[in-house]
């Protein structure tokens, strides 16, 4: 309970000012397409040069938690996921906003972010030594099977058809092979210099989600001038709290899935939201409503992506291994003040670490308050006429893709993928499984290559990939997941 003694440091005027500033700034940066949490934290690093270690970290921690939550704003209102963490939020969030319930969607997302986020930080406070061992348990073979488990999720992520979901996943995995291969040092599918680094995930996300709806909006305005105006409804905050608490299954599944996945170095943040969304659907009695603006979808996704924040810092703080790109930037923020993360960090620098962790707890609450405060204004975005909206989203899409690394190449990638997705959607394919393939492909591939290199030096690939408790467990879960998807597809067919 040592951490309680350090709450005083968080409530000093300067710390509170930084915390509030970091939270509001983070929400705005997070809501801006193209500015992922990693970029937001990196942008703030130079400011921490002039601050003390504690103040610098409070600013960075506040910005990290609130950018992850802020990404939900553009995901819900504009259907542009700010970062991979928010992909799952678009699925039900944007549909809900289109029905005029944008305010409700935002409230649900901030409240579940708060609950998930606080749970994640509490895990960080109490279980860090245990969790560190768990984070290390995942070697190349386990990460490979974990990625395969993720592939099984792809199948069920597309609510219409398992086959189309898997096909989209394949396209995503193929896109992921573009670029220089770091493991074997060869070029693959590099037709144009801007593809040398492969398909960057953020421009891909923006293109795949935002561009098809921009085209649709433009087309509608052309052919149908009497497009219906969305009436944005007000939503009382009490009702939102009640709603979140009554959806216990989604909340618990989202929070736990997010915390567990967030812990695994190199995988965590990107897929936590999508996997939690899928699991919540499998456990839900109202399975069929997912994807139609169902509150459980938002709750599971947002609880998961904020629950991942706390655990994702465990490998960084205890082993000095950044488990995610954002954690890598935070490592820079620690090093600049001469603080070396490691097992003795909590003994050597309790006066820095605990205020940092505590401020993330307080930051979650602030994030929720400010988020809900802006929700009712922000939701009015849906009332903007479609013609104006289409142009605005297009502008933001170009800006966001360019901002990632000041590269026009990324803008072209965004545009090409977006147009491709428009036609794929006409044939009943959806973007979410495609994006998951894009994320999981490299994880599966690099870990398979690495694992087989290690296996060749040891007892061969079979023993390396197919023996050991964790391998067997992951394989078993993957098999169950496939069987379940097949079974539910078949049984719904019989119903029809």
């Amino acid at each position, binding site marked *: 309970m040592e951490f309680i003694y350090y709450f005083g440091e968080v409530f000093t005027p300067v710390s509170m000012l930084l915390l509030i500033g970091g939270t509001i700034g983070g929400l705005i940066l997070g809501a801006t397409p193209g500015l992922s949490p990693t970029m937001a934290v990196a942008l703030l690093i130079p400011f921490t040069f002039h601050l003390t270690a504690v103040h610098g970290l409070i600013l960075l921690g506040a910005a990290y938690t609130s950018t992850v939550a802020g990404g939900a704003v553009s995901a819900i209102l504009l259907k542009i996921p700010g970062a991979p963490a928010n992909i799952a939020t678009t699925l039900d969030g944007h549909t809900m906003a289109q029905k005029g319930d944008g305010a409700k969607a935002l409230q649900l997302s901030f409240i579940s972010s708060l609950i998930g986020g606080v749970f994640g930080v509490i895990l960080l406070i109490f279980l860090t030594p245990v969790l560190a061992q768990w984070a290390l348990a995942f070697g190349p073979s386990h990460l490979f099977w974990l990625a395969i488990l993720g592939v099984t999720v792809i199948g069920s992520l597309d609510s219409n058809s398992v086959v189309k979901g898997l096909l989209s996943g394949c396209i995503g995995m193929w896109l992921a092979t573009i670029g220089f291969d770091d493991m074997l040092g060869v070029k693959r599918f590099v037709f144009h210099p801007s593809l040398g680094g492969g398909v960057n995930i953020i421009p891909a996300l923006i293109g795949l989600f935002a561009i098809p709806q921009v085209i649709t909006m433009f087309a509608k305005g052309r052919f149908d001038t009497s497009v219906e105006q969305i009436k944005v409804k007000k939503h009382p905050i009490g009702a939102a709290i009640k709603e979140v608490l009554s959806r216990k299954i989604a909340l618990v599944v989202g929070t736990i899935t997010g915390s567990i996945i967030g812990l695994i170095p190199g995988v965590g943040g990107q897929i936590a939201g999508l996997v939690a969304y899928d699991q919540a659907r499998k456990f839900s009695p109202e399975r069929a409503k997912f994807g139609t603006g169902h509150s459980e979808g938002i709750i599971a996704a947002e609880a998961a992506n904020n629950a991942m924040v706390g655990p994702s810092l465990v490998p960084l703080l205890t082993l000095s291994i950044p488990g995610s790109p954002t954690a890598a930037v935070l490592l820079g923020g620690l090093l600049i003040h001469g603080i070396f993360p490691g*097992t003795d960090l909590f003994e050597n620098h309790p006066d820095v670490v605990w205020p940092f962790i505590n401020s993330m707890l307080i930051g979650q609450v602030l994030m929720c308050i400010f988020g809900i405060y802006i929700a009712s204004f922000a939701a009015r975005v849906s009332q903007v006429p479609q013609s104006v909206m289409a142009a605005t989203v297009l502008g933001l899409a170009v800006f966001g893709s360019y901002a990632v690394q000041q590269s026009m190449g990324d803008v072209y990638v965004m545009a090409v993928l977006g147009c491709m997705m428009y036609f794929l959607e006409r044939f009943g394919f959806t973007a979410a499984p495609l994006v998951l393939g894009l994320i999981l492909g490299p994880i599966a591939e690099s870990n398979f290559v690495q694992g087989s290199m290690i296996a060749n030096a040891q007892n061969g690939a079979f023993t390396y990939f197919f023996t050991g408790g964790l391998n067997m467990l992951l394989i078993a879960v993957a098999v169950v997941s496939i069987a379940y998807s097949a079974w539910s597809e078949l049984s719904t067919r019989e119903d029809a």
Partner: protein
Amino acid sequence: MKKILAALAVSLMGLTGTAYAGNYPERPILMMVSYGAGGATDFQARIVTMTAGNEDALGMPIAIINKPGAGGRVGWNWFSGEADKDGYTLAAYNVPHFIAQSIKGGVDYSTDSFEPIANWGADPAVFIVGKDSEFNSMADVVAFAKANPGKLTFSGAGLFVGHHIAALQIEQAAGVKMAYIPTKGGGAAAMKAVIAGDVLGGVNNLSDAFRAAAAGNIKILGIADLERSTFLPDVPTMKEQGLDVDNASVNFRGIMVPKGTPQDVIDKLAATVPEMFKNKRVAKRMKAGGSPMHIMTRDEVKAMWAARQATLEELLKGL
């Protein structure tokens, strides 16, 4: 009137990027880092350029942009082909990375595409093992590798980077075959593989290994450099342990401009930047972060690049 016209002409020249070194720099400068935000190169680049705006330095701030991808190839390809050659676009270089990549081919640049300005840091590669490993010296490692050819797995951050070069040199010097496992995700992923026991050993950055060893997660067995490090006075070099490994794998980091940048701009940068690196605040931050500094002037860097080119061509010939 003439004066006004002259002033107008000068400002127009500034706008169009025509060099006029007398007033250079007149606006903020960009510096491209070909690795992601938060990586060691990015982190150090931000520290060493933080005093650029001071009057005794360039008088204009330097802003960092990241163009990561393919082990640095994306950024350096862009820099050699598309970057403005007016002195307002600088880049960070990593030697031996970009030289080794240009020798292996598939990229648009070589040492002839760039003009060095100054070097700020040198991060040697070290050989590390997990804290409970049976290996306690390079001799133990070599003995195991001799007895079990190709079975000693060791990690490093990708191919044709400093870690890989050190790995090749160690194998060559000891006359053994080991299994080098490149990891995706840089030095951090390679370090995780060692700490978690996925591999038997690894090559990593001295700065990262220093922290991991201080935290008690790993043992450092040797440094691939000509001299011991002030950070790790107790760790012997490879040469001291009978392995003929020089400093070809040391990760030198510095600033360069594209070839074609006006000579007077290069001269101004070459005179100012090394002094900028010597700033006390910079030194303090770098030391706090465990990042070894090694300041070299333009002429020294030119000589170092040429020497690396020769060594690496020889080393990579057989691959």
